[in-house]
């Protein structure tokens, strides 16, 4: 046996392109990625087997436009095609619209959408470039949810960020703060968050981020954003500690 991969292929009678040759992939790294997927807590309940029936892709909104097929994703996982899995994580898995129609339809009871989520989590864990690219436009939402506990704010929806939503973001001319106050729900008189979230609540959520490893995920993906968030939250925690102290003082005064 010779050491060249091409002749290895030829030895079993399989032809190859002798003129253009591809660089081999690092199989160990690929298997590590697959292992992370396979051992994910969701994995077993999302994948039971696959008949290749295609009902998932049939009903998939992304397949409507993209060369994307949940069936293919399930097949790659089911057949443990580590190269294919890695390739899909570069691009395809981000096409999924997470509607879970596939899961609702699968006769085997699989959840291709859930499997995509597992792959996305693992892409993040491995700091894959595709995940970073996809995350970038999400950073405003990330910052919001990680520091306030609330994912969206009325003041995020501006013509600069959403020109394609047209000129009528509101059909009544008035400053945003007035429009918000005209909502008959006191919790919604806010602009920075969708509803008023109290300080303790946002700190509680931040604790969840810390304890569940989400903050670590973020550090891998976007160090700058991570630093900003940590700074903000340190400050919030101090404020909260101060406030608690004040309460204690008040109590002492009583």
């Amino acid at each position, binding site marked *: 046996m010779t050491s060249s991969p091409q*002749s290895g292929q*030829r030895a079993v009678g399989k032809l190859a392109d002798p003129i253009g040759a591809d660089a081999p992939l690092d199989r160990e790294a690929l298997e590590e990625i697959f292992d992370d997927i396979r051992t994910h807590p969701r994995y077993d309940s999302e994948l039971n087997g696959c008949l290749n029936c295609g009902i998932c892709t049939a009903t998939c909104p992304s397949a409507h436009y993209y060369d994307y097929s949940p069936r293919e994703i399930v097949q790659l996982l089911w057949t443990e095609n580590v190269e294919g899995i890695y390739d899909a994580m570069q691009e395809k898995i981000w096409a999924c619209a997470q509607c879970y129609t596939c899961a609702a339809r699968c006769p085997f009871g699989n959840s291709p959408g859930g499997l995509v989520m597992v792959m996305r989590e693992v892409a993040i864990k491995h700091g894959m470039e595709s995940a970073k690219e996809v995350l970038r436009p999400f950073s405003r939402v990330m910052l919001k949810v990680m520091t306030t506990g609330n994912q969206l704010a009325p003041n995020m929806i501006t013509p600069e960020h959403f020109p394609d939503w047209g000129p009528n973001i509101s059909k009544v001319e008035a400053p945003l703060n007035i429009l918000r106050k005209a909502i008959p729900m006191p919790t919604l008189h806010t602009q920075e968050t969708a509803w008023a979230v109290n300080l303790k609540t946002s700190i509680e959520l931040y604790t969840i981020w810390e304890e569940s490893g989400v903050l670590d995920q973020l550090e891998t993906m976007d160090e700058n954003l991570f630093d900003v968030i940590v700074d903000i939250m340190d400050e919030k925690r101090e404020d909260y500690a101060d406030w608690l102290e004040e309460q204690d003082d008040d109590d002492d005064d009583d």
Partner: protein
Amino acid sequence: MSEKYKTVAYYPGCALEGTGHGYNRSTKAVGRKLGLDLIEIPNWNCCGAMEVKNIDPELQNYLSARNLAIVAEKMNVDTVMAPCNGCYHNLKKVEHDIAKKPKTQEVVDRLSQKAGHATYQAGEVETIHALDWIKEAIGEEGIRERVKNSLKGLKIANYYGCMYTRPRNIFPEKDQGEGSESTHNPHYMDDLLRAAGAEIVDYPLKTACCGGAHTLADSDTSTKLVLNLLQTAEDCGADVIATECPTCHSGLEMHQIRAEKEHGIKTSVKMLYFTQLLGLALGLSSRKLGIHENVSDASGLLKERGLA
């Protein structure tokens, strides 16, 4: 030595009158040397190769049937031997189609009548390849007895190509158990050359395609396919690729050069027709076997091994 195939009708085909001249010369020379008689089919025509089939398969059937009809009608032999895989394949194909397909019978009959010759009927003539001819008429033992100049030390990869074995349904005599030729792992050439003293290497691409049909139309594809064949033969340690088809042979030769000229990939394995190799073993001269007419220049190698 049996009497079988001692005298056969010879269908050289167009290629053996052109680029396959060395094959033609060596086949005839080996036949003479072995005491076998070849009677060329009078007035034969081209079998149509793959090209006419692509225009119309029944037209190609007619072309081949015409040759068989001449043998059946005008020659006093019941066997036709074709050294070219393409010719051999097409004669086998019309034999099959004419027996099985009413449409073929209809077209062949119609055209034969219009052309004013007898319609070939299934089973009138047996078609064999040059390999069958020597294997059956002389056999390995017969070769071994006659070897004057053993091919000992020569490492050979035997290349059979596509048309000799595929598709299986036109070769009913193959895959019939021990002794018969195999479509999956043909071995007649191996047997004969081994008997001539050569060392036969284990060549996994025996029946892979050389892209001969597209040698000009899609030269890049042919070059890639041929390169696979050549490099694998070299990986297997072969000095020589033995061939039994003029199209494959010239394809290997041409694309060996093309790979070198267009892609800078050089290979040194030589191509020789199996009849040339057999002839050398039987003591025939290199010149008589047309070895100098090959593009692939094996003279240095043969000299080095004391074979020329």
